[in-house]
């Protein structure tokens, strides 16, 4: 296992997370010995970089905010540059439990992309109302695209194998919701196998999820839009990658 951890890069996009990122990095390095942890400071105006560096992470600083998608593509490019096989995306706010990472990595034996699903039995994460319906619909549609049963398609807790890493280093979308919905579509249509395993979620260290109906409706609309365009775009292929690299 530790051999696999050494070939794995943990990428944590961070935007103004100085209060929690230090603890999360320390927990990751303690829980997963030998792993390399890259915090991507996504244009924060606070001391995220200093805190994460002091905690022992490598920190890449983006000159301005690109969103999760932009931060993650930087992580994939860094992984390729440094010769890491696998990338695990982990939130820097402490929602994702690093103890689930070995299970995600084990599942990479049978898939190119493993999603840590929040509703698959473990933990007590719950959403209600339109957001729940939207997530159900997305799950159903993306399950069909990926050819496997997925219950949580908007999870930010994911493990990527070598094929997916090289694909995402070029084609990771920076748009809103692109890092979840469209990324899945890109991977599935490029021939990557997708699977999910249950993970438990912890409450966010700071802030609480909003229950504003207008925001929920806006989320719904944007999610459908993102899905629709992801499905009608020309697919990216892995073979093309191999030829052009």
């Amino acid at each position, binding site marked *: 296992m530790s051999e696999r951890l050494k070939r794995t890069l943990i990428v944590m996009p961070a935007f103004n997370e100085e209060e929690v990122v230090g603890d999360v990095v320390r927990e990751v390095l303690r829980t997963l010995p030998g792993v390399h942890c890259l915090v991507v400071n996504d244009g924060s105006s606070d001391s995220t970089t200093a805190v994460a*560096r002091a905690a022992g992470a490598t920190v*890449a600083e983006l000159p301005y905010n*690109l969103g999760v998608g*932009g931060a993650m*593509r930087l992580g994939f490019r860094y992984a390729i540059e440094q010769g890491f096989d696998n990338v695990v995306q982990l939130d820097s706010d402490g929602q994702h439990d690093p103890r689930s990472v070995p299970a995600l990595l084990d599942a990479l034996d049978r898939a190119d992309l493993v999603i840590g699903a929040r509703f698959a039995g473990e933990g007590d994460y719950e959403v209600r109302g339109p957001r729940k319906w939207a997530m159900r619909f997305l799950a159903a549609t993306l399950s069909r695209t990926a050819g496997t049963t997925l219950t949580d398609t908007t999870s930010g807790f994911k493990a990527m194998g070598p094929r997916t890493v090289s694909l995402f280093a070029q084609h990771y979308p920076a748009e809103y919701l692109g890092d979840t919905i469209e990324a899945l579509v890109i991977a599935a249509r490029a021939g990557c196998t997708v699977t999910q395993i249950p993970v438990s979620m912890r409450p966010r260290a700071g802030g609480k999820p909003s229950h504003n109906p207008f925001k929920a409706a806006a989320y719904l609309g944007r999610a459908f839009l993102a899905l629709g365009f992801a499905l009608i775009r020309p697919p990216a292929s892995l073979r093309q990658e191999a030829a052009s690299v």
Partner: protein
Amino acid sequence: MSVTSYVFGVAAALLTLFVVIEMLRRRQLRERHAIWWLIAGFLALLIGLFPVILEWAASVVGIDTPTNLVFFISIAILVLVCIQHSAELTTLESKTRALAEDAALHDLRLRKLEALAGVGTERGDS
């Protein structure tokens, strides 16, 4: 059409063309962005000088009031230019995104090299 409105139409077209050409001359506008404005300016000048062309064109496409054709073409050109600008903006955004990523990766390499060379100038972790 009165003489005043004839002169006004021609003058407006000439002014537009003058502004666009002058900006091109001073390199404040690139040719690829100016092409639509040049086309619009020349069309306006042509119709300003020979209003019969407008009347003929309107009758060809079945528009009763020739001015409506002017509005239609003007709005169509504006919409197309706006779409072109949005597309350019998208291209520019993806280019600056790639540059931002490159800058961050280079910064990481520099830090590593500096650490190896022992010249670790304590750069402020801002």
